[in-house]
């Protein structure tokens, strides 16, 4: 990875939890807003339920940061057209870097005996 790209990635870490949840929810493909909300809830057994404000506030910022991009699709009329989002390459890198960061943190926590060896 070129250095400036790497530093751009690092500048975004640590990610806000909502960002990471959204990145993970979009990991398997594009989704619209409510579907992201639903996916996050499913993955966390209903513990994390994002509000529309958190969701779209995060989407706005993630779009601006280039983590995700918007694609318009659907078959219904213009009014019913939903906005779909998907990860960008950059978004994937950032998600991976964040995952790296978290797993190394986890390793350190294990090494210092804070976490049982097998979860």
């Amino acid at each position, binding site marked *: 990875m070129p250095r400036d790209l790497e530093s751009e990635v690092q500048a975004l870490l640590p990610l806000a939890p909502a960002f990471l949840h959204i990145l993970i929810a979009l990991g398997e493909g594009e989704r619209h807003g*409510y579907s992201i909300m639903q996916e996050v809830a499913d993955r966390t057994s209903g513990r994390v*339920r994002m509000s529309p*404000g958190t969701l779209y506030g995060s989407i706005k910022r993630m779009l601006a940061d280039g983590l995700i991009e918007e694609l318009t699709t659907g078959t219904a009329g213009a009014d019913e057209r939903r906005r779909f989002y998907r990860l960008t390459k950059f978004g994937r890198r950032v998600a991976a870097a964040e995952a790296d960061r978290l797993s190394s943190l986890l390793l350190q926590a294990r090494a210092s005996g804070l976490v049982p060896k097998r979860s």
Partner: protein
Amino acid sequence: MPQPPIVERLYRLLLRCYPGEFRDDYEREMMRAFRERLAHDRALGPGAVLRLGLQLLVDAVVRAPREHLDVLRQDGRYTLRSLRSAPVFAITAVATLALGVGANTAIFSIVHAVALRPLPYEASDRLVRIWERNDSLSIPDFAVSMPNFISWRERATTVDIVGWRGGSVTLRGPGDPVRVQSVNVSPDFFRLLGVTPLAGRVLVEADTAANAGNPALIRDSLWRGYFGGSPNVVGSTVTIAGQPYTIVGVIPGSSIPLSAEFFMPLRFDPTTETRGNRIANVMGRLKPGFTFAQGEQEVQAIASQLESEFPDSNRRWSITMTSVYDWLIPEETRRALYVLLGAVGCVLLIACANVANLMLARTAARRREMAVRLAIGAARRRLVRQVLTESMLLTALGGAAGILLAYWAVPVIRQWLPETLTRADEVTVSAPVLLFSFGVCMLTGLAFAVLPALASSRGHVTDFLKEGGRGSSAAGATPRQLLAGAQVALATLLLVGAGLFIQSLQRLQRVELGFDPRGITTAMMGVQGERFATQGGPWNLFYRPLLERLAAAPGVEGVALSSGAPFGGGNTGMPINAVGDSLMGEAALQTDWRMVNPDYFKTMRIPLLRGRYFRPGATDENELIVAATMARRMWGDADPIGRQISAGPNGIWTVIGVVGDVRNLDLSLAPAPTMYLSTTRFVWPTMTVIVRAGEGAQPAALLRNAVRELDPQLAVFNVREMEALIDDSAAQPRLSASVVGLFAGIAAVLAAIGIYGVLAYLVSQRTQEIGIRMALGASRPAVLRLFLGRGLVLTAGGLVAGVAGSLAISRWVGSLLFDVQAKDPWTIAIAGSTVAAVALIAGYIPARRATRVDPLTALRAE
């Protein structure tokens, strides 16, 4: 279409908390997500719905403001970028605003410190001063006799009354003898003002008893200075005129409205005090529940009772009552301060108009950019907000710079303030002043942003683009012309004011003094003690040898002695009656008196008009020299020499000479009737020695040395040059003249920039039209006339408004002027023509540029 369910409408309402742009982008999506989420959560049960509701509330209070902040930050960044690309505009605007805000902050800090803060005394709004008053002698306020003071105090039920007598004493304590202002106060004085001593105690009623010894209080300044802040000062003893005084306490100077440094109990000896001897000062505090009018009425009624009980001493004497606030900060002073505030307010308005004009010019120049942004989807409100953000940023920068400017300027201004201005030394940029400046900034930001914001919100995208970014020649021109006109009006107003104040100051400084102040130095001293107790003692034993010694010194042109030199502060006067025929009939004439030595008139260069001066050498005769005004008031054109006057218990006096009138107290006061007695017969406890010296002599040192050689125990004080004393007397008018003058100059420059800006803008907008006109045969002078004419119309409108404004406030300013009418036509004419000339020059430059338009180039640009 069916109404959406109530919860959806509620949520739509909540979404209004978000910024418009955010809603434009996401409102529909959020509504949809909400609908689906609600359906899902309903299935889960009421707990889930409740959780959703809470989340939405949190969204509205936490997330929505964050979005607003985001937009603001974005606007700020954009604005910073656009300002950086237009540094001349940015610097001009910020500097103009800094000047306006800085000037207002500085002047307001004076107004606040002097006039707006409550006085630092307990229940200060109920404190009053009470004077005796005699309308038949034209005395509006006079000291109070001790017996009258005691009677008022005993009889008044609505006012608590205290009194004091001022003076000065020579202290002999730890260091060299020092002369200090002293005051004998009735002990409840300190309780009335709520004074808390810094050390020891204040004086109490028991201290006035004859056997209470000599307890005294000192002010903190005397404690820190003379006593070196010694912790053992309470209980220590000082000597005054051979008598030991025990210091019982130290009080903070800020807690009392007197400048004295040494306080002794006021004792009343009914066997020696008379009702006609008016020497005490009286202050009171209205008891709770009583109004000023009730208190005034009651003391007035008591004065009437006393008048009928003691007609000999109290006939025609009534009272004057004012609040202590009005006494300390007279209405004139406040008015002068508000005039200054008004002047800087005008400067700020002009600055706002200028920045508004600059922004309008910028908006016009950026119409194409704006149009493009509108065309690619930027919301119109976004553009308006852009203008507002820009104005707010400029205001913030200008305001911050202005406040810094004020921090720097206030200590400088403090030096210019008249010494007599109460609390002048406390002028600082304090928290309330900062609050004021902040408010001024907010208003300023809005004031100059309104027109540009309106201008940028109007018009259609297609129009903008069709015009090729040039804009129609009329767009934005009208508000800009109005602004320039307003600037001219305000500048005219300020110039008229400055003209009036400067003339007033000049006339004040050119006023006929009646004596020659050049080279004169005065010094005060008081002779006390046993060896001077004999009649004529102080004169023969001390003053005459002192004057002889001084007169013999090199460089000294003359020496004299007086009980009070002109502009030395303080006054002595008494009512006198003519013996025999006079214009006054039975009525008394209130006359100022001075004790002077025979050489006084020669040294002061006061002309002798008739008769002769006092003869040197002691005399037993009651000889009197009168000033011209007194002679005229008493005897008209008749020869006063040899006529006599009666000075009550002081006997009958014969006039031996008439001298010229002298301004004694204040430059702006016409000379009062004055008479002179000879020091060969009487010497006042405190006398002023006057030395007239040539270039290079050092009269101050000379005076101190001569006194020390004669009496090392004697303190010399208030050593001042006469010209400095006179200068002080003009300090207030000088402040008005210099501040208003300074700001009027700035205003004229700003107004010139305003006119220049508008005309330059019009010329640039109409380049093409000029080209066509010239191609069709219009001559250069015709084009010049076209634009110059436009400038003149603007100027004329502004001038008319400015002159009307200055006439409207003339009644208000009039009382601050000396010997100048507030509607002085010459001042108005000169100020008006100055503005017109400046405007003409400012307009000529762009107008001439219009004549340089090359028709070919102008047309080819199409």
